[in-house]
């Protein structure tokens, strides 16, 4: 809430003698000093990567090699190197949810993840997620006609799987709230909702 009155750096109060500023600073310093205190090897360390590098990504149960630059997104690797074209490039900023994949089991957007940042993670795309529980999610989408052009569908399928894994007994209101990260331009929301309700009612298979 401070209106800056000068261009001089507001943090210029940092000096060698006065490096702990503000009440609670000493306690906070103790927490920082003791967090993760074991002398772990710095895994990627101070290593700075520039230009092209070959990396290994763990995708759908397989280790696969990709050639990336720091700016390469996970979505680009999946689609253009691994031919996994389920995740879609819709929004540069991830606001559509069309590039949703699971990273260590959690739904994230491949369009806003740099490929280098997921080197040690378990990546699952719609190509494998959709097969889980005997393909129950895509089957429900077919049964309830939950797609029109289908462009948003892979993102929805991954999000629905992640949502149901966490909320197997979700109510209609919870489903509506939980699946807001995915946008459907064709407006199939009512049918997606029906499909998910059916999956919840269907019990453990869903």
């Amino acid at each position, binding site marked *: 809430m*401070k209106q800056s009155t000068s261009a001089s750096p507001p943090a210029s109060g940092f000096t060698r003698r006065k490096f702990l500023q503000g009440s609670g600073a000493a306690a906070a310093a103790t927490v920082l000093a003791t967090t993760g205190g074991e002398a772990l090897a710095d895994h990627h360390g101070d290593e700075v990567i520039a230009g092209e590098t070959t990396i290994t990504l763990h995708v759908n149960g397989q280790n696969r090699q990709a050639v990336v630059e*720091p700016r390469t997104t996970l979505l680009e690797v999946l689609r253009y190197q691994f031919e996994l074209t389920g995740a879609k490039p819709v929004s540069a900023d*991830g606001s559509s949810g069309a590039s949703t994949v699971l990273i260590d089991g*959690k739904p994230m957007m491949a369009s806003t993840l740099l490929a*280098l940042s997921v080197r040690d993670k378990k990546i699952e795309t719609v190509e494998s997620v959709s097969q889980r529980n005997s393909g129950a999610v895509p089957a429900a989408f077919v049964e309830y006609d939950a797609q029109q052009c289908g462009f948003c569908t892979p993102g929805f399928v991954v999000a629905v799987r992640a949502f149901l894994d966490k909320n197997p007994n979700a109510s209609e209101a919870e489903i509506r709230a939980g699946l*807001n990260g995915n946008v459907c331009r064709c407006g199939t929301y009512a049918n997606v909702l029906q499909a998910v309700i059916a999956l919840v009612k269907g019990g453990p298979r869903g």
Partner: protein
Amino acid sequence: MNNFAYAQPRRLESLLALLSPTPGETEVLAGGTDLVGLLRERVLTPERVVNVCDVEELQGVHEVPEGGALALGAAMRLDELHEHPLLESYTALHQAICGLRSLQYQAQSTLGGELCRRPRCWYFRAGHGLLADGGRLIREGDNRYHAIFDNAGPAKFVSASRLAPALIALDARAVLVGPEPEYLSVVPLEELYQTPIDESQRETILQPNQVLAQILLPQADASAAVASAAYEVRHGEGPDDPLAAAAVSLQIESGVVRQAKLVLGQVAPTPRVADTASRLLVGHAVDQLRAEAAGRAAVADATPLSRNEYKVQLAEVAATRAILKAAGLATGGFDE
């Protein structure tokens, strides 16, 4: 996207060593939900991007020695915060996280990234600079989503963080570290934010080689229970930003408010602590009329731009409803 060099250190010391003191030369990457889009659109063109997600010191919730506070690591994901047993009593924080309504953002966004997310101002995002030609483009152009307070200077964007109003209402403090690991400063979270006066400044006081390391939350004290709530006024349910938001904490004893802190979001270049409105609540029981009076007081000195007068009423409503919600007299909002 321009190319850049990349590093993903594991220790705070390495992280700080990788950051440059020159503005714009390096950028901190957390969940990437905001930064990667800004890089792609070339709004930011750093030479090096440093990922903070694996930094050990920035993880987890810890009790601060000597008690009294919890330290939340800036690299924690929002869903981790939401599910953490030690954080259960901080209602406003949970409501703000639930209000995001996107599984993906909740799983991918971090505490530090959310608090430092860059303004959504469309002139800034289109590459016209944070202030959009010293504020001219906003003053003369489409300012329907811009500031209704603190907008007389060149900065007219609104602070984008959805968690900051809730955390400020809860008296959170920010732990800033850098340029070296032993340079540590703790400020009330509201003081992390500033209204920049020229393009050399950003919307937080963080130096280019400083990071937000932790948020300190006062530990719940059973003798003086704090009720809190957050409320957003939105166009719709999707991943969209609120038009106005408010959060409040109330310490109520025998039905009377002993302490109150009301904070408005999405209305000014910084989160806005509404002191006068907060004072109106102290010493009284909360009821509809009192909450409405505080809501009115919270927006009394608004100075809307040419196309955003409607936001004044929305901010008033957000404040009133947040107060009623905290007092248990109303429900509603996007967190349900």
